[in-house]
């Protein structure tokens, strides 16, 4: 009976959830989309993803070890996730040196300059993508053409390029859009991880099942985009594409399911999440329809990231008893 006892306040058990469990959970949810991108973009998708993950992990390690002088946390999976998400937002023919700059921007500026995981204001992968988009507009907006009949192409920077759905829409060439079925499975040009709506939705179902995310953010974005573009389409079908095209094109699915739901940069209360989602939906459509950029998803998420602290202070969880 002489052995010493541990004493601590309650609770004395823990649910065994962990940051790495959630990060690897999101990575598992990204597998279907990655497989589709391998099918359509082949070697290029593999190289871009591997290079992006490699540099993100490397920069995280170097910055934590030598600049912040603390124990690197590269095994928590968050740097890997940032690497995959950054890659998914890039064309599959992007040269390695540009990807490395993107990784440095994502990890160095987007994450570590704020103090590391949990302290950043903006989604790190999105920070990397936006910095690349502004710095290398030409390389970032020429996407390889895809051909469902020639899977796993062994091309990288030598791939033939062409227009995407959004650039066609921006130019008003609504008659040249791919079919809905092609857009669902991802048989269209675009950043390597964003093309297949079905694969991304599958990932969303997995994350909902594993309780990694809740439905509030993605669904509020989908509904807002659908309603807003639906109204515009009804007003002038010749100029504005159908809401289904908007939902299935560009980075909308990838952004709504994987980028906007980033824990650190999205609101904490359910109502706050809805406001945030509606905000992203509105901004995306406004940029797409009235702005000069064909795609507005990343900017919309970025702006709402900046508003998240404000949303957190004003929109609180529903209080038991309804408050005072």
């Amino acid at each position, binding site marked *: *009976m002489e*052995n010493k*006892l*541990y*004493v*601590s*306040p*309650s*609770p*004395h*058990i*823990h*649910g065994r*959830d*962990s*940051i790495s*469990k*959630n990060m690897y959970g999101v990575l598992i949810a990204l597998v279907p989309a990655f497989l589709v991108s391998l099918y359509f973009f082949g070697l290029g998708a593999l190289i871009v993803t591997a290079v992006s993950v490699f540099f993100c992990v490397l920069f995280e390690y170097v910055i934590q070890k030598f600049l912040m002088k603390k124990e690197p*946390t590269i095994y*928590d999976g968050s740097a890997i996730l940032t690497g995959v998400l950054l890659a998914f937002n890039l064309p599959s023919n992007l040269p390695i040196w540009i990807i490395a700059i993107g990784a440095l921007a994502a990890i160095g500026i987007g994450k570590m300059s704020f*103090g*590391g*995981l*949990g*302290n950043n204001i903006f989604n790190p992968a999105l920070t990397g993508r936006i910095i690349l988009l502004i710095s290398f507009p030409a390389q970032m907006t020429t996407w390889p053409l895809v051909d469902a009949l020639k899977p796993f192409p062994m091309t990288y920077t030598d791939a033939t390029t062409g227009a995407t759905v959004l650039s066609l829409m921006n130019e008003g060439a609504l008659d040249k859009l791919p079919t809905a079925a092609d857009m669902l499975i991802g048989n269209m040009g675009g950043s390597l991880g964003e093309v297949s709506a079905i694969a991304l939705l599958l990932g969303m179902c997995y994350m909902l099942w594993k309780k990694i995310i*809740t439905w509030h953010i993605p669904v509020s974005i989908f509904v807002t985009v659908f309603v807003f573009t639906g109204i515009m389409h009804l007003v002038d079908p010749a100029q504005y594409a159908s809401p289904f095209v908007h939902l299935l094109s560009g980075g909308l699915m990838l952004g709504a399911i994987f980028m906007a739901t980033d*824990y*650190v940069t*999205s*609101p*904490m*209360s359910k109502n706050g999440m809805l406001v945030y989602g509606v905000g992203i939906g509105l901004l995306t459509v406004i940029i797409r329809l009235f702005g000069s950029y064909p795609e507005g998803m990343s900017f919309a998420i970025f702006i709402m990231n900046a508003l998240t602290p404000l949303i*957190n202070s004003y929109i*609180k*969880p*529903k*209080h*038991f*008893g*309804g*408050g*005072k």
Partner: protein
Amino acid sequence: MLRTFRIGGIHPPENKLSAGKKITALAAPKQVIIPLSQHIGAPAQAVVKKGDIVKVGTLIAKAGGFVSANIHSSVSGKVNKIDNALDTSGYKRPAIYIDVEGDEWEETIDRSDALVKECSLSSKEIIDKIASAGIVGMGGATFPTQVKLMPPPGNKAEIVIINAVECEPYLTSDHSLMMEKGEEILVGVTLLMKAVNVNRAVIGIENNKRDAIAHLTQLAAGYPGIEVMPLQVKYPQGGEKQLIDAVIRRQVKSGALPISVGAVVQNVGTAYAVYEAVQKNKPLFERVVTVTGKAVANPSNFLVRVGTPISTLIEAAGGMPENTGKVIGGGPMMGKALVSAEVPVTKGSSGVLLLTKEESVRKPMQDCIRCAKCVSACPMGLNPAFLMKYTVYKNWELAEANYIQDCIECGSCSYTCPANRPLLDYIRSGKGKVMGIIRARKS
């Protein structure tokens, strides 16, 4: 669809290892240590002195105020001393030590097993008997029962809600009591209804105790006004406000009492104690205690005299396992880690849980990633991550504006946190500070 409370909640593994075990009465130990502070409120004041001879059921300490409770001897023998003793809180506080000699009970106590259903006492007489028997809330909160039965002016009780939820993992003392003392509990509930002049009572039981639900439902047919309500299994349903929300769909407002929505909530163990006090003249000096843990040889439900050292219970359940890391008074979510296994059983001891060394160690804390899982888990609709931050930065205005004082300390936030942040540790301390500020402002 079964009912449950509407905000937050978690599902920890149930681990009801001692479910279905019959209640075994433990003999009185050689010496009992009976603390004078076993309830919320003022400590009781000793009315015996060293050398006094006491019987089982003799009053040994009188309530020390309005919110306080009488204490009776749980054994017969001689008062050895009145001295400070380590209790479940980890502090040394005054207690009465009694050396046990024989087992002689006060003659007024009816020791037969016969069920006494009839009661001709008035509401006031019932409450007086409850007060003199020293009954306190037996779910662990230990609030003096008679105080809860006397609503402040302007409030009217509409319903008695019996808390038979036992949502804490591992614990089965209420469950075993319901299986073995069903009739007595129902008579106790009837007495409570009479005490507060209502004609309706609901016994809320979580659906993981189907045998108890079936048993009590069958018996309740003979007791007008009492309904047994199965509830979804969700922690912390045994929280008073959560149970009221689950049963009558009303939410008690911040800072208000359950009576403000017409509810009087009592634990099922308390209902049994009320039966014994009113119908059998038996003061509260023994209770059912679960002794459990994954490494415990023989998880059990014991009927134990108050003042028995917890080590005696552990011996009776097969001894302290080799790799014990923590001894917890109560359940794993809200129980207190004990500094020693020699502390005595009190009126509020629902269980003793032994965790292994591996189960006892917390993982290192990481930065908050604002995943909001604590927000989803919080049954009071608070933002635990922010409340912890306000406490760290000592921002009491924001803490109060965000209802830190409403925290029920259920631990769902800390349990859920993927970054292993000790949210409740901080919130508890911040809550204490803010409650102090609120009290100072009122006075």
